[in-house]
């Protein structure tokens, strides 16, 4: 009787381990997407500390910022957040895991910008690519390319 209970418990334990493994694989994508979600949150709430924590603070980090007038590549981590009142909502985030340490994130942001003086609002759609690398157990942005999507 005891042997049977032990056998049953062993099977349950084995199933648990398999499930944990599967959950871990799924969470790698979830963890990566969390970076994009936190990006939108940090910009919308003007949380520069959260924004800073999402990037790899390295001279290797680079970004193409969204700009209607044209913006060249920024190389190296620069402290700071958006100068304007902007609210981002993320749509269709997608993670492609390239390896244990590198992933590509894509998604769209609806950006609502409020003019500080007139309080007039304008809306834009932004396409975003984030290349994230797992450094010290945490997914960090090593490259960003964001660009406006013409709505007309």
């Amino acid at each position, binding site marked *: 009787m005891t042997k049977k209970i032990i056998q049953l418990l062993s099977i349950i334990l084995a199933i648990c381990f398999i499930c944990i493994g599967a959950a871990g694989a799924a969470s790698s994508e979830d963890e990566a997407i969390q970076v994009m979600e936190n990006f939108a949150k940090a910009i919308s709430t003007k949380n520069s500390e959260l924004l800073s924590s999402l990037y790899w603070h390295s001279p*290797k980090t*680079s970004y*193409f910022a969204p700009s*209607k*007038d*044209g*913006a*060249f*590549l920024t*190389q190296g981590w620069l402290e700071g957040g958006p100068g304007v009142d902007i609210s981002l909502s993320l749509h*269709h985030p*997608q993670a*492609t895991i*390239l*390896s*244990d*340490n*590198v992933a*590509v994130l*894509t998604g769209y942001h609806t950006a609502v910008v409020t003019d500080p003086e007139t309080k007039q609002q304008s809306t834009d759609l932004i*396409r975003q*690519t984030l*290349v994230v*690398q797992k450094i010290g157990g945490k997914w960090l942005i*090593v*490259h960003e*390319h964001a*660009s*406006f*999507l*013409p709505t007309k």
Partner: protein
Amino acid sequence: MRSKILYGFMIAFILCLSLYEAPSASAASAEEEVLQVENNWIKAFNAMDFGLMSSLYLRADKTSSFPPNDLLYQGWDTITAMLKINFQSPAGTLAWTLHNPQITMLPDNTAILTGYHIVISTDPKTNAQTVDQLRVTRVMQKIDGKWLIVHDHGSGLPVK
């Protein structure tokens, strides 16, 4: 006898130095290989070589592309079908050049290439030319010894 031993030690020392330097030499060639993919991308467009163009992308569903001013294209079939439309122009009507390419090597045989494209389009009837500038990001992965594009993002850079 002593000079022969010294000579032997010197050769061994030089050999060790060469072996020590070897990894950095291969790292440099990885960057060159990544750059070659981008140069081939440009070459494919200038020569209207669709076969070359499609060979540069990873044949997988996970491959994705944000072409300038468009939504995300997912999968090799979808991306190459989208690119094929551009290959219907007569050869010589589009002239692409790459500027300021920059490569960042990442772990696990992955790399990011950033740069700018200048595209001069010539109308075959009027010979009138227009210029476009693009910002380009390519994410590449070395699979079976070959660097392939797994994601790209192109966006317009207005000509002032």
